[in-house]
């Protein structure tokens, strides 16, 4: 457990220093832990586990857009779990449930019980379709078609800078829509 969390902190430091691959690895590493915790939180609130993936995706978006609030001198896991807990509470509240979220839902996850699959979620896909055309095209190209920023720029006759701006704005708009819908 300790080792895992130290590894996350190290990856996040590299990510903040500009290592995109480390960032990708970190997000992939935390996702199963978040998924297991989200399922457990939903089960405890008497909710079906099928919303877990929506929560996981909301957590990942919040982690991404708020990562400047992480202090690189501090361990990464408590910061991550605080965001995750906040998002889980928000989701349950939106569904009008009384909320009992235990921070240990996030901290206690054992590697053995972590489901490994990736799953799709409805909410992000729904909100994605309401984004402006350009942001949607860029997000689709990079996320779904797995095209690089450079090739996406060529595909849409945009500059790489414009692709980066559209990507970031798209992610920010997606997060705002998920929060407010």
């Amino acid at each position, binding site marked *: 457990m300790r080792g895992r969390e130290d590894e996350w902190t190290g990856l996040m430091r590299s990510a903040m220093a500009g290592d995109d691959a480390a*960032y990708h690895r970190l997000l*992939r590493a935390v996702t199963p832990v978040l998924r297991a915790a989200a399922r457990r939180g939903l089960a405890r609130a008497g909710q079906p586990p099928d919303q877990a993936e929506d929560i996981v995706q909301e957590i990942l978006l*919040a982690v991404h857009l708020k990562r*400047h*609030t992480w202090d690189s001198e501090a361990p990464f896991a408590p910061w991550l779990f605080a965001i995750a807990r906040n998002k889980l509470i928000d989701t349950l509240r939106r569904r009008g449930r009384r909320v009992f979220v235990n921070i240990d839902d996030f901290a206690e996850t054992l590697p053995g019980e972590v489901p490994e699959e990736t799953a*799709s979620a409805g909410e992000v896909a729904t909100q994605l379709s309401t984004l402006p055309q350009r942001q949607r095209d860029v997000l689709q190209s*990079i996320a779904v078609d797995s095209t690089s920023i450079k090739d996406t720029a060529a595909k849409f006759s945009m500059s790489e800078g414009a692709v980066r701006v559209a990507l970031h704005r798209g992610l920010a708009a997606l997060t705002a829509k998920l929060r407010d819908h």
Partner: protein
Amino acid sequence: MDTDQLIRSLAADNAHRAPRVGAVLTMALLVAAPLSILIFATFLGVRADVMSAMHNPFFDMKFAVTLSLAIPAIIVSLHLSRPEALMRGWGWLLLLPVGLLAVAIGSETMMAPAMPMTMRLMGKNSRVCLLAIPAMSLPLLAGALFGLRHGAPSHPALAGALAGLLSAGLAATLYASHCTDDSPLFVATWYTLATALVAAIGAYAGSRVLRY
């Protein structure tokens, strides 16, 4: 979109760097401050006898009190803009103005004051005080909330209340140079009421706009 695809798009956006919350908060307060100063200059202004008032320790004490509210409130609000932050160990900072006021009230009592207690407490400007501090706070509060929105507070209402405290502290610093009531009893009563009002507005606004 499945989660792996979402992660791919997040990793592609890793190069994007956001400024620190402190930088955004500072900028937002600097943009808002001229509006508060404009309200001050239009409706209030510095009191006429300011030069002689500066020799009165209770006049100077007002600024110590208001700044000892504003500065710690800024520090604590920035602390709370981190999701894992707790109030524990930080709350005492907000007691600084309370302690200063208690000391000031104690020393005024011992100095055989010229006016009876009720007159010192009621003063001549209580209504202006209750109106002016919240009015000058509002632009600063809006700026503070804008700045803190850049953070990720786990307790939006609490962070909003802190935004209220910091803007009231700054507004009260301006107001203190206008007000001719220097008794710490007046400050403890009316400044506190005005500040509590702004903090309540901040808490309400924060619970709506500081969720991330």
